[in-house]
């Protein structure tokens, strides 16, 4: 998501000064998301974040501060395998146990709350019904407003955000089905906001704790598209004939380093994204056919001539199937 900080300089400056406008004064979805995004990127906070999904619970310690205009962030796992990500601006370090292989999600580690927030567009209102309930409960002992985005059709999930009345910081995020049931939850169970955080707070808890057997890797954050070559929409070899309403094509890339090459098309409605991969079928390449659920994400695979089509998205199964069944080569 593009930083709202860059788009809303005056609001950002007020928040930094501790004089942010009252959250109650905000009355549009853009206002609500702007407050949340500014807060999550600019405030000092330290807390324990719980991610409940698909019957599993992951727990992370998240520490964040803006120091001299640079975001500092440390994310450390609290259960399961020990792992840590420390970020300073666009540079970050990942620490993992030496005895494990590289986590495949290495580059997507970080504060999950940042990824949960959308880049708001007015068109979202055509496919999601926004409901805002001020001062509607508490999360981690702090009063929250609740913003619900209910899906207007069966092709997408809904979302529910609960954010801090005082600061606008999002404290709880839920992916919900059409009945309002939670499919995935990310929430703080404990948080301190605006408390002083010195450099020590951003030092590794794993390597400083006297525990041995960790490997630290330093990386610059890659930009989108590092692993593919972008091509224009008109150059796409494939298209989707029955795209659910509201989804539009955002990027087409070619990935020559995948066996047989692959074309990757990304569709989004502003919240959910769907990826379509069309790859020349290769005997030595893993393939799938039919539907597969990966927690709240779903995938659908199908053969189309000499191509293997794979559709992935954090959308209902019916959506990836519909897209996958209507992929057609372009003339």
């Amino acid at each position, binding site marked *: 998501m593009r930083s709202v900080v860059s788009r809303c300089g005056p609001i950002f400056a007020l928040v930094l000064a501790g004089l942010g406008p009252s959250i109650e004064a905000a009355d549009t979805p853009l206002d609500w998301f702007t407050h949340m995004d500014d807060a999550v990127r600019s405030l000092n906070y330290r807390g324990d974040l719980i991610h409940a999904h698909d019957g599993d619970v992951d727990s992370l310690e998240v520490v964040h501060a803006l120091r001299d205009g640079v975001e500092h962030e440390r994310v450390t796992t609290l259960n399961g395998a020990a792992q840590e990500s420390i970020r300073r601006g666009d540079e970050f370090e990942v620490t993992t146990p030496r005895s494990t292989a590289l986590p495949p999600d290495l580059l*997507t*580690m970080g504060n999950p709350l940042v990824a949960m927030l959308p880049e708001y567009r007015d068109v979202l209102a055509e496919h999601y019904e926004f409901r805002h309930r001020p001062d509607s409960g508490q999360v981690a002992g702090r009063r929250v407003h609740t913003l619900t985005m209910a899906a207007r059709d069966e092709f997408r999930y809904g979302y529910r955000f609960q954010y801090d009345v005082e600061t606008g910081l999002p404290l709880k995020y839920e992916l919900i089905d059409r009945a309002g049931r939670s499919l995935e939850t990310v929430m703080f169970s404990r948080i301190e906001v605006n408390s002083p955080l010195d450099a020590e707070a951003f030092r590794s808890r794993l390597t400083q704790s006297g525990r041995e057997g960790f490997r630290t890797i*330093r990386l610059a954050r890659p930009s*989108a598209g590092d692993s593919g070559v972008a091509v224009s929409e008109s150059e796409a070899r494939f298209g989707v004939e029955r795209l659910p309403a509201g989804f539009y094509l955002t990027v087409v890339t070619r990935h020559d380093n995948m066996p047989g090459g692959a074309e990757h098309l*990304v569709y989004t409605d502003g919240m959910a*994204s769907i990826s379509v991969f069309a790859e020349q079928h290769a005997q*030595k390449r893993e393939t799938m056919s*039919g539907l597969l659920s990966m927690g709240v*994400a779903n995938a659908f695979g199908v053969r189309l001539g000499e191509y293997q089509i794979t559709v*992935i998205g954090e959308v209902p199964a019916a959506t990836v199937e519909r897209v996958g069944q209507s992929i057609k080569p372009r003339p």
Partner: protein
Amino acid sequence: MTDKIDAQISAFIDDELITEESELLVRRLCSDPAMRQTAARYTMIGDALRGSLDAVRLDLNNAVMDAIDENAESSAAPDSADQPAARPWGRLLGGGAIAAAVAVVAITALQPDPAKPGLSTADTLSVTAGAISGEVVPSNDTSQPLGLTPTPGLRRAGNAAALDDYVLLHNQYAQRPVHRPVRFRALVVPAEVEGESATSRRTSKP
């Protein structure tokens, strides 16, 4: 992929690669799905040889298991005089060991689910693992019904591992990434057997 890269991946996993080379290798791993597949396979070999895949071994055809064991023994034998008995698994890059280890996952993934005996082809999933040697890997025949849980509610994350490359690419471009944080051993979540949940046997899954 060259032997040099293979050796670098092997050394990296064994933590025998110098820092500068490690960082360079990580960058390549992040952008090269084929290299990640290789790294994941080497990890599986290591797990198998360390015995941490005992649950998977229960599901494994004896002949395939013998192939793993024989390969491990034969690979270790020439150096037995000057190497510890439990040598770093990442050096065991023989094709037989790799193929057998990949077969562990393939066979496990394709085990019929006794709780779902009547699934039709339409609502089941077929996953075949790529193989360096194909003789012990099930064919890519999607016509036969397979006992994997249909969506929604599929609990076998190991099957989803076949999609890791796609998920990584999706996450680079998606508005909101498919969030699967801190997931180690992406390819090694055994199928459920007789009342024991996969979750309870995921020894290092956070």
